[in-house]
């Protein structure tokens, strides 16, 4: 069973979204999902690249109004 952890990174500017994401991700088990919400436009490219480099799987991304949402599975 994988659990989903939520990280609210709204209002944070570069480089904070990936700094926070890494901190939370470290505590998770392989297969767990990290759900992140951001408002920084650069975070779309940043989190995509960060997930790929770390061997994680970006399952889904959505945009709602000004909020970007990501679901990343720990690899």
């Amino acid at each position, binding site marked *: 069973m994988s659990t989903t952890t939520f990280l609210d990174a709204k209002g944070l500017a*570069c480089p*904070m979204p*990936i*700094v926070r994401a890494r901190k939370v991700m470290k505590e998770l088990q392989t297969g767990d999902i990290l759900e992140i919400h951001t408002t920084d436009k650069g975070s779309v490219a940043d989190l995509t690249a960060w997930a790929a480099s770390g061997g994680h799987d970006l399952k889904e991304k959505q945009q709602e109004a000004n909020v970007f949402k990501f679901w990343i599975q720990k690899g």
Partner: protein
Amino acid sequence: MTEQKKTTIVLFSGDYDKAMAAYIIANGAAAYDHEVTIFHTFWGLNALRKDEPIQSKKGILEKLFGKMMPRGADKMGLSQMNFAGMGPKMIKRVMKKHSAMSLPQLIDLAAEQDVKLIACTMTMDLLGLGQEELLDEVEYGGVAAYLGEAQEGRVNLFI
């Protein structure tokens, strides 16, 4: 786990904006699980100065240097549009509006993320800076300390 990746940055510049770029990259690289080293030399050493005045025995030239250089990251000027100190005031206001982190915050975050902050001892002597004037988390070294890290670095920058 794959092999440990490394990032090294030489911070030569004492400009607030350039130091910000260096520290943002350093923090980003730490989030990429890189082992990160920032080697501070010449004017970049000022980013590591404590902001309070420190009493220490110095010659006249060293004292003068100490007085003329910015005491700490927050006092550094901009590389462009400094306007005798008005520029930094303006940019800090804009940064707050966009919730970008200030340089002192970025330095704290880097230390928290175990970024190695190295001060070049040879240029410390030239600029008359003593260890008691620099932040407690700073380590000390020379060119070999930098090269030792840089030869294994995936990302090596000079700013």
